[in-house]
């Protein structure tokens, strides 16, 4: 094995390859499986693979939240609905939207082209990665060297953590970045939560109106 390849195939890169491949294959299976329950399960697997990719990027928080929210809550609801409606195989439903197949192919090609262009323009070179920095494995407790500094200012540590790229995905990093009024993320974040609240109220009022009609 040439030196450069051995250097390239470090364990994180290998893991990335495995799970990236897994993510792609489960995504494809999710689309191609005729059985809706299996399709949903492939989507769950896909979410797991992506979560592991997040882990490889040191975005622990994102990884776990992906599992909790998507795999744990949303997909359970999906499965609930699929099972409740007892959807059979799609052969049984006549395909009423024949026009969508060519459109889908066109859209897919367009997306692939855009992705290629974007990636090609943004990645400068395929330089072999060495390995992830050691500091990535540090926890906040480990960050204080015992004996090195007996008294530490807490906020200084947190600010430092939030700034480091390898710890930006940790809970501390995300919290520090997201809720910092000096940074531009707080307003969009609050707007998104407000939007969700509006959606909840809207759905409640829609459902409520239906029941009142039923009563009448």
């Amino acid at each position, binding site marked *: 094995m040439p030196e450069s390849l051995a250097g390239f195939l470090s364990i994180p890169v290998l893991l990335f390859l495995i799970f990236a491949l897994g993510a792609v294959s489960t995504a494809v299976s999710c689309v191609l499986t005729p059985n809706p*329950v*299996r399709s949903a*399960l492939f989507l*769950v697997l896909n979410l797991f693979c992506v979560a592991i990719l997040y882990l490889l990027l040191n975005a*622990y*928080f994102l990884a*776990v*939240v992906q*599992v*909790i929210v998507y*795999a*744990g*809550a949303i997909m*359970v*609801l999906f*499965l*609930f609905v699929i*099972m*409740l409606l*007892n959807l059979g195989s799609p052969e049984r439903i006549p395909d009423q939207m024949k026009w969508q197949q060519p459109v889908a192919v066109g859209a897919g090609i367009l997306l692939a082209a855009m992705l290629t262009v974007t990636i090609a323009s943004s990645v400068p070179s395929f330089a072999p990665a060495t390995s992830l920095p050691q500091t990535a494995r540090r*926890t*906040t*407790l*480990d960050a*204080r060297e*015992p*004996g090195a500094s*007996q*008294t*530490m*200012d*807490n906020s200084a540590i*947190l600010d430092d953590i939030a700034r480091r790229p390898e710890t930006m995905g*940790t*809970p501390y990093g995300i919290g520090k970045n997201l809720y910092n009024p000096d940074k531009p993320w707080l307003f969009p974040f609050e707007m998104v939560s407000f939007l969700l609240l509006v959606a909840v109220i809207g759905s409640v009022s829609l459902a409520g109106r239906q029941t009142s009609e039923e009563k009448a």
Partner: protein
Amino acid sequence: METTYTIWQYLFTLPVHEIPWWAEVFRSILRVVIGLAFGLGLVPIYVWLERRMLGWVQGRLGPNRVGPEGLLQPIADVIKLFMKEDIIPTNVDRGLFLIAPIIALAPVIMSITVIPWNGSKSWGAVAPGLDIGILFLLGVASIEVYGVILAGWSSNNKYSLLGGLRASSQVISYELGMGLAIIAVLLMCGTLGLQDVVRGYDLRQPHEFVAGTVLNNGQGLINVLPLSGTGYTFYMLDWSSGFWDWNVFRMFPFGLIACVVYMISMIAETNRAPFDLPEAETELVAGFHTEYSGFRFGAFFMSEYANMAIVSTICVTLFFGGWLAPLGILNQVPISWIQALTQTPDSWVPWWANLINSLISALWIILKLFTLISMFILVRASYPRLRYDMLMRFGWKGLLPVALINLVLIAISLAVQHSFRDSLGTAGAWWVGQIIAWALMLAAMLVAFVSVRKSYASRQRDIASGEIPADSPIVRHPVALALPALTSTEK
């Protein structure tokens, strides 16, 4: 001899960053083995305890023939399950049917990894020091239900399907309350690492890690330097620390409310009575595992009991001080005793002192665990089962608002404390924050009381107007009222 001692040091005593990779692999395997033994090895004992305890409550004996006091009965049952034929009914979705029990069992085993059994950074858990412990638990808990749903769906049995449906609707109704209760602890402690949660860690306060530091749980560190190289930290043995420092009593009563919400949700999480809807045997035969037999049924059975143990351990870790003793003095063998015994200098303690102290920690966590398991069993013996819609209503209208308001109050109290800390000191800020939160809590209770009162009054009006029947007492009729008296036909 020298080599043997070095290997011993590599395997057991030296800090993580000073050992070769194979020693770390050995340590990891050993920790996994301990964790698995803890998680699964105790399952037969829970089964035995449940059956004997139910027997005791219900005025019967329970299994008492196989082995002393019937202790080997669960083992015999497991052997029987192993030997039984593994029936796969026709027309099931074969692949999913086969992996569903595995999916049910795997997350339970996965959650063992983050549960700390002592405070050591290298031996304290399967994966000690993982700083996303709580999130990991939530993530794993959220995928546990897949096993049940898939078993219910793939069995091609309507009872199983209903069981799976019930499981999925149950999980979305209680898991929110459970998550919010856990987040309350997270907020109080300011950390996601479970070992730190037990220590009562609060990152918002500046810490001085020097000898004699008193942590939030009242424990004092006598030294943060790893003693005898294992990284096991000795705590100051202090009468002033104890159960009142556990998270359950923290920011009273908000820690307690979170604890109660969590404990109710954990019964729902494990599908135990009175929330055993997915497998309610009198309604759905056996619910989601109706079609399972042999060892696949055994896997479901085992996952239920292991899950019971895991959620209890999480409860112990989050709220009841994990490996800590109820009184600080009982936490470990005093270091002075050991030094007096071995005539060693202050900076060195023998390896067995650490071993004894970790065993004491393990003893406390197991004692607390069995207390909670007994609670599970007594609850099962006492209460009727809820109905499906009652559970949903209870989860959405009961647990969720309580947990949410609790969380908001904790956040308010913490924010107030934070802003008053500089001017009033820690204790003064605590009182200010808590008094404000208590006042808000009383206001919330008042609102709740008024709304309950209102609905009660409207119900009384409906009763008075005859729209709904009143809760009438049983009438005792000395003679017949509704029908004319019939003549006697007997001679």
